[in-house]
């Protein structure tokens, strides 16, 4: 038999878990002080925010919350590679990516604190999609957004995040197929954190990689160490550049690990072993990045202390803003259902307002 097609999946890793470069020459941005400090600071803020959000939930001050612990390099690396007028479609834990887009920590708290007001983003995120809870369904509207850009000849790309579990959904495959067939300016970022709540990756697929799931749709796929901020940023830069230049979509599979419970409503000790988590902990992204900065001579204990203090201030201010925000009025439930309130809904709105008095 002849071979009619052959495929391969590349894997990018540039820093080892000790923050040591694994190649002779890192990408240029890795030597740019401002870029690297920016990435590290956003990762650090993300972690400080995450820790506080969990504490808020535990003390009854926040609803169920999905932690991003361990995903910071993937989220920040991808988000920071985006241009302002690109569009991001998150799932539900990509805070680090959102921070790079100007979403404020108090807005994220607002959402998990039970108000749609948390989704009213400004700045670069003003055109971004909000959280998407129905797994992988974001892949389809993301394709629509990308098709809009392509139709209008705009050099903009859509970045859509999903999880390893999400790759089992039909919507993911239909989205990929759309991206392939129209060569859409899209980047699918599969955050492979090995778990979909309690279901391990081996129960989702027999495929060797998730990156290869793009291949059947004619979409290139690449794997990256999702805990290596430099590698993530590099593959995201490349994928976005291709997308904006009309060279088509990419699937990035970022290998990382969900160090936390699935959400604050979950107890991961019920289904996974402590030693697996400990092993993953040794590869986490944060320390690695710091060590790399130290090796560049642009980071030290003193700066770290100052950053921790600064993050605390930022998060304190966000929590204060969140806690001081007025509760939603009952009217808010009605006022954004349609551009103009239909009569039938007006009646219901009035009744609800009377009830609330």
């Amino acid at each position, binding site marked *: 038999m002849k071979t009619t097609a052959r495929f391969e999946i590349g894997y990018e890793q540039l820093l080892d878990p000790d923050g040591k470069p694994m190649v002779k020459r890192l990408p240029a941005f890795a030597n740019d002080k401002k870029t690297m400090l920016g990435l590290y600071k956003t990762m650090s803020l993300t972690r400080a925010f995450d820790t506080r959000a969990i504490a808020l939930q535990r003390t009854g001050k926040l609803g169920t919350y999905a932690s991003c612990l361990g995903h910071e390099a993937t989220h920040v690396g991808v988000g920071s590679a985006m241009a302002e007028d690109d569009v991001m479609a998150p799932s539900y834990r990509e805070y680090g990516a959102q921070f790079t887009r100007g979403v404020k920590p108090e807005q994220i708290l607002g959402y998990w604190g039970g108000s749609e007001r948390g989704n009213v983003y400004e700045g670069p995120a003003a055109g971004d*999609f*909000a959280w998407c809870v129905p797994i992988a369904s974001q892949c389809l509207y993301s394709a*629509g957004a990308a098709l809009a850009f392509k139709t209008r000849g705009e050099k903009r790309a859509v970045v859509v995040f999903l999880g390893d579990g999400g790759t089992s959904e039909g919507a993911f495959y239909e989205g990929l197929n759309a991206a392939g067939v129209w060569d859409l300016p899209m980047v699918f970022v599969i955050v492979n954190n090995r778990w979909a709540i309690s279901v391990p990756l081996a129960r989702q697929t027999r495929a060797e990689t998730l990156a290869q799931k793009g291949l059947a749709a004619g979409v290139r796929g690449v794997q990256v160490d999702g805990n290596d901020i430099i590698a993530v940023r590099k593959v995201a830069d490349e994928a976005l550049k291709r997308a904006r230049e009309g060279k088509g979509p990419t699937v990035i599979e970022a290998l990382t690990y969900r160090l936390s419970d699935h959400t604050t409503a979950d107890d991961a000790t019920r289904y996974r072993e402590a030693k697996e988590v400990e092993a993953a902990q040794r590869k986490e992204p944060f320390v690695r990045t710091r060590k790399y900065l130290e090796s560049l001579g642009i980071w030290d204990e003193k700066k770290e202390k100052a950053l921790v203090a600064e993050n605390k201030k930022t998060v304190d201010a966000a929590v204060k803003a969140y806690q001081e925000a007025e509760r939603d009025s009952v009217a808010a439930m009605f006022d*954004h259902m349609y551009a103009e309130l239909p009569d039938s809904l007006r009646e219901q709105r009035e009744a609800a307002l009377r009830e609330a008095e």
Partner: protein
Amino acid sequence: MANRITLVEAVTQALAWELEHDESVVAFGQDIGANGGVFRATDGLQKRFGEKRVFDTPLAEAMITGLCVGMSTQGMKPVGEIQFSGFMYPGVDQLISHASRMRNRTRGRLSCPMVLRAPYGGGIHAPEHHSESMEAIYAHTPGLRVVIPSSPRRAYGLLLAAIRDPDPVVFLEPKRIYRLTKQEVPDDGEALPLDTCFVLREGGDVTLVSWGAMMNETLKAAAKLAEEGAEAEVIDLGTIKPYDSETILESVERTGRLVIVAEEPRTAGVAAEIAAEVAEKALYSLLAPIERVTGYDTVMPLFQLEMSYLPSVERILGAARRTLEAKR
């Protein structure tokens, strides 16, 4: 001079008008390009407007619906076609989880000015899944608009309105009457309102409310009633959700009698909603119990029995006569 066209041609005419006059409008679906759609609703549009504006998609309804959602959030006005309403379900997730709630989820930051069109309803001897009337699913979904035209002129005006509407519209086209009659439909770009029903016949004895293909039987029943000396007021709902209850209530207050005619299954249907609202707001005007003449709570049968499923003129007459004969 007279531009007499069928309902399906009116759909084409409306699409062409909007494609011509609004650059952000695009139309897509399965077989809608060179083939012009299996019912020819997009006949000639690709040739006229090019493949960027009118195009075939892969065979994936969830994707078609999702494309509508995504494109509309980015300032376009997509009109997606699902080949038959029975194949909308893969895309219902996009409709219910996203299209209908995008505006609310983002407090108005993003919205979905999209239209999802599909031929719907029974009576054309089609195979399984090609004949059902499930408009209530969409009507039950907060945030959607559901529009069903029942004549060429209303198809034209309502489709224009649906495309121009800032919110997502499910536009169901009664395929049984796609080519039943021709009507003069001026191609003037005039939209019809989405917030009123249409009074097709005035009368003071009984109110008949219907929509879609059943308007045909309902009007026939009204003509028969007139021969029998009873004047029926016939109302075409047009927009199923949110619907204009005022016109219906005003009519029932005059006639004291209400018959709702619908192809949909009976339980939890749009007819049930109208009956409930009239009972709440106009009970004391009623001279007879409200009657519903609907499809049954059965699977839409294959075509040997479809005419037994669909409300007939006789069934409508029976219900109307019962209301007229009722003694309080």
